[in-house]
């Protein structure tokens, strides 16, 4: 991890949490803990914990495989097995990993699922992914939790009712059956209370980018910060402690007037503040980041850090309405928002965080994010009269990361930003 060199306490905490989870997963057979595969958007961490189950996130395994340069081989393995070149590469990476023995990112074997919990939120591919997994793990119990899309930019009461009924009448009874643990609403409420606390902290953390210089990069470092809250620790004291610690470290940077930490140390001069739409590329993550920090560009907000939940508009889990709250959480995840909502949210970020520009990293194999991004970009450009940049890459398929193309495009974009700065400065003088 980039910040490891700095040995911040929060980094150590995070590492311990993640390693602990993989250790537990490795020992799941012996300990008898049940294993629940699920996805980051719409993840029901608190509910999974209520049943003492262990979560596995196939997307996280895929992105970790990419950062460890293993995804290319996994994808080829899946393509040998009739998977098309043109579909979501997370799926192929996961399938390839499974075909090659299901050895997870820490080198430990990932146990087979007892439950495939498809909380079908914001991405159609999730459904196809679990249909594929179900064929590989025929004994796993499948729970489909259909999350209605916010097609009209709203959560209508019947949408919540629909989800609550699914939770109450399908998901919970199946989880009880498989885990052997009776549903304990009080326990769920306790987890939801802790989830709310973690959400408060992470919101404060991402708000620190309002400072100049921004003490953090909300995209390239942000993807690490969202780790604990997205991969099963939301709803735990550990997550709250982690975010508290992280916040105090960031606060320290603010007090000292420091900019973000990059893999090559602290960023010295903040020249451009950007908002980014779309997930990052994982196969060349460092090279990708370097293009930005070399130019003095810091990302002050990103949509990707909201895939596992949008908290900065004030929404929180509510222990007093446990199931309704789980339902609303799912419906509020970023890719479950409609295109006008996504535009509004990004526009608000640009304004609130005083961004100089807007960049779309369009992912070749992710329709959930990518379809519609060009229209969104045009609307944001018109609405805010802000320079916009557009680059293309992929999540975990190394064949689709063209360093020179991306660099060229970004260089033109930065030139545009520079030009704009000069014009604005001149106007201010006049």
């Amino acid at each position, binding site marked *: 991890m980039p910040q490891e060199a700095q040995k911040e306490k929060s980094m150590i905490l995070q590492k311990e949490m993640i390693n602990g989870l993989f250790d537990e997963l490795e020992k799941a057979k012996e300990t008898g803990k049940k294993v629940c595969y699920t996805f980051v958007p719409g993840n029901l961490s608190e509910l999974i914990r209520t049943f003492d189950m262990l979560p596995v996130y196939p997307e996280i395994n895929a992105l970790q495989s990419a950062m460890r340069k293993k995804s290319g081989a996994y994808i080829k393995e899946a393509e040998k097995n009739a998977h098309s070149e*043109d579909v979501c590469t997370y799926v192929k990476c996961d399938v390839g990993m499974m075909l090659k023995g299901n050895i997870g990112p820490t080198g430990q074997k990932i146990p087979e699922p007892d439950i495939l919990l498809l909380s079908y939120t914001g991405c*159609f591919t999730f459904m*196809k992914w679990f249909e594929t997994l179900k064929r590989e793990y025929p004994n796993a119990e499948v729970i489909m939790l259909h999350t209605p899309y916010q097609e*009209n930019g709203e959560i209508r009461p019947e949408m919540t009712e629909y989800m609550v009924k*699914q939770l109450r009448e399908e998901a919970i009874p199946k989880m009880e059956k498989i885990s052997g643990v009776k549903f304990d609403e009080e326990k769920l409420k306790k987890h939801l209370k802790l989830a709310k606390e973690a959400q408060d902290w992470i919101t404060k953390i991402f708000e620190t980018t309002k400072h100049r210089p921004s003490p953090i990069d909300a995209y390239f470092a942000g993807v690490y910060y969202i780790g604990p809250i997205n991969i099963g620790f939301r709803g735990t004291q550990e997550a709250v402690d982690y975010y508290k610690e992280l916040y105090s470290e960031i606060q320290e940077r603010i007090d000292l007037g420091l900019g973000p930490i990059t893999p090559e140390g602290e960023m010295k001069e903040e020249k451009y503040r950007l908002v980014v739409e779309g997930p990052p590329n994982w196969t060349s993550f460092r090279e990708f980041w370097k293009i930005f920090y070399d130019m003095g560009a810091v990302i002050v907000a990103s949509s990707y850090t909201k895939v596992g939940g949008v908290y900065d508009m004030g929404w929180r889990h509510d222990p007093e309405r446990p199931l309704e709250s789980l339902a609303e959480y799912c419906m509020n995840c970023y890719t479950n928002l409609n295109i006008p909502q996504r535009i509004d949210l990004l526009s608000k970020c640009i304004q609130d965080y005083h961004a100089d520009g807007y960049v779309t990293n369009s992912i070749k194999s992710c329709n959930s994010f990518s379809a519609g991004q060009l229209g969104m970009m045009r609307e944001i450009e018109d609405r805010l009269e802000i320079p916009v940049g557009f680059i293309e890459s992929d999540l975990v398929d190394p064949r689709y990361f063209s360093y020179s193309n991306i660099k060229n495009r970004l260089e033109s974009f930065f030139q545009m930003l520079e030009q704009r700065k000069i014009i604005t400065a001149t106007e201010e003088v006049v």
Partner: protein
Amino acid sequence: MKAIRELIAECSTQAFDLHFTRAKEWKAEKEGRVVVGYMPIYFPREIIHAAGALPVGIFGGGDRKQVIKGDAYYQSYICRIPRSIMELVLDKHTAHFDGYIFPSICDVIRNLSGIFKQQKIGKFVKYMDFPQNFLPEIGGVYYQQEMAHVLKYIKDLNGVEVTTDALNHSIGLYNKNRELIELIYHIRQEFPWRLSIEDVYHVIRAGTVIPVEEHNDILKQVCAHIQQDIGKPQDKIKVVISGAFCEQPSIGLIRAIEEAGCYVVDDDYMLGSRMIMGPVDPDTDNPLEAIASAYIRQSQYSSSIYDVHDPKELRLAKIVKDRGADGVIFASASFCDPSLLDAPIFQNAFDRMGIRYMAFQFSENINQFKVIKEQVGAFSDSIKLWDEEPIVI
């Protein structure tokens, strides 16, 4: 009764009328009429009909509409249909449409609904979230609420409060429509030479853009014709086409498959018109519940419906068996995630079951398909040369 060629000619004109002229005429016949466009795959057109409106299918521009503006909305790695739909809309082909419905089939169609909303295209835009929960008291209820939402949009435009009688009447008309379409497939299963798949396609697609009453009339006549011993059999294998349920192959490609030696005895080109298998109960006090119940219990398999309780590979294998087909051709639109992600599931299962298949990808605008035709020809030849092997399901 009109001659079969005359009927087909009428249908082919309607099917590919990208100006949706019949809908325009229908709307002009009476003040206040409402036209509602719907995208693939399936939408319960009965409810639009019962609300006094006309449902019109929008299946993209195919190879008949040059896309220029639409390309500005979509990256090269996204299928073609959303950009050609944008082109049609921006060029005002659908200026007489009042509302648009986007059934929940994939993220591309879903996000296209957002672009329509953003651009304020039409008087209403509804992304129709079909339930993925198949319990009548959960998913079924939600589906009824979604339908009620659509009806409210229409009522806001034409003031029509839908009655139980009107809904039951419309259900009856669409039951007839599907029954006649299935009769065509039923006859063709044994006598595929009586009506080419190209003609079948024209006839069914025409039904998506004209009033159902007119379509039923055409279907009755077509069925009467093909119940006669017309045409001459040729030495061709029988295949089922799967995977082309949204973006449509050009008619030339549809034709080429048969010309290359394959009678197409079933397909999912116009899946939406055939989605519900068997009649919806036309005589209940709660017709929306009847429609929901039919969707839950009688839907054809589809890439957009979570299938874990009723695996699609077994369902397609059953179609192959029931139709007496020799194999399957998987035809997926390029970059179509739902279709392409299903391919390994089907193909791995068919390898085990011994069902022969081939696969290709297409775009709606390709009209050069020499390579595909050769591949289909080779597939047909190889099957003719193979020994008969039983299909294990």
